[in-house]
């Protein structure tokens, strides 16, 4: 084995090592524990509102059970904000400038 081959071998070993360590670290630190899962289920059971507090301009993204049929139209007149999915979120700062 020449120097280049040894270097490549060690490089792949290093990559594999980093990957395994990363997976082990994330598995122990970032994965959902049973306790977390229990809390999430309890909270959703309590409120009955399962949706995540995320938003992406899509309709019904937040608490879809209280959306209206007309919410699918972006210019629904019942809203104070400028688009239809802003029940849970702020409107755009740029769009709010009048």
């Amino acid at each position, binding site marked *: 084995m020449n120097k280049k081959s040894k270097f490549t071998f060690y490089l792949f070993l290093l990559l594999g090592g980093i990957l395994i360590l990363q997976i082990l670290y994330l598995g122990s630190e970032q994965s959902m524990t049973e*306790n977390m899962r229990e*809390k999430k289920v*309890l909270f959703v059971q*309590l409120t*009955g509102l399962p949706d995540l*507090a995320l938003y992406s301009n899509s309709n019904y993204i*937040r608490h879809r059970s209280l959306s209206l049929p007309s919410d699918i139209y972006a210019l629904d007149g019942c809203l104070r904000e400028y688009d239809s999915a802003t029940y849970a979120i702020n409107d755009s700062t740029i769009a709010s400038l009048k």
Partner: protein
Amino acid sequence: MKNKINIYLMEYALGSILRQGHKSIFIAVVFTLLSALLTSIFFITNSIKYELNTTVDALPQIIVQNTKASRVAEIDINSVDKLLNLPGISNVNARVWGYYYFANAGVNFTLVGVDEFEEQYSKTLGNVVNTGKLSSSSMLIGSGVRDIMNSSYYKDYFNFIKPDGTIKKVEIAGVFDSDIELESNDMIVMSKDTLREIFGIQESKATDLVVKVANLEEINTVALKIEQMFPNARVITNDDMKLSYENIFNYKSGIFLALFVVAIFTFFIIIYDKMSGLSSEQKREVGILKAIGWRVEDVLKEKFYESLIVSLFAYFLGVILALAYVYIFNAPLLRDIFIGYSDLKPLFKISFVLDFQTLFLVFFLSVPIYIAATIIPSWKVATLEADDVIR
């Protein structure tokens, strides 16, 4: 012995990669970025799906809402007794909840009312709140709500403006645990009575009804019966909710598909460039190798090793970068597709899910294609006579 890795060919392949210098680096960089992007996208969607699926079984079995002129309207509490008379229904709970627009910060809070003295609720709340206990004059808030309130100098209480213009002062009793931030970020939980006061909802009305069915098989039948009993009711079963999750992901998939197509397209341009033939220098190299006695098989093996080293290196590096990007750095830029531009956005701390399907998918979409794109043109040249190639 024939299939054993030929270390000399491997060394030659390494030398060839290093000789090509900038070209090898460019391909490795593009390949790494591509696999990192694809893997990140799949990691994010998988983790969010996992988050949603975790709580999917905790969904109410049936939600009954009243509609008036196609708009959701308050429902009469008397409907609870009517529903309880239906065979199959074991429990009906009248919920009071809604959105409160805090104009100062331009955000909407989700307010949910609970019966604070019911043992079941106090036990549940105790598990999901860091400190503090709910009382008739206090509320529990999500961490996003706390930040927004703090920025408006509401540290210990918040003044809600009631429909009649008067103010309802509610103390902040506690903040929801950071473990449930994705669910509770914009939520405020308080007693039903306080909520009725803030929203101006009468005692005889509720926002909607949650129906519990004794036999899970009967959910759809019961939902049908409720629809017949209340023709203007909007009856939502947990299956409808699950289906709407799918719709969300179909929408998300559209965004991702666009990114995916761009990424794949870039990759295929590189592949096409490689497929379209070897450079004259590379052809001469193959010709010389053949002239000094290399067989077609040896040339192909060498090219295989060459492409395998580059593509595997890029793939592994891409996966490592994607894992760090999504789970350690919380996916900057890409997370905006999900959380938008809201001032009430949660930390994008999604749970780590090791999805081998994703890893295999990205692997098979990239590594074998690249290897094929390297070997096929080499095979075309290697099968020619050596003097034809050199000349």
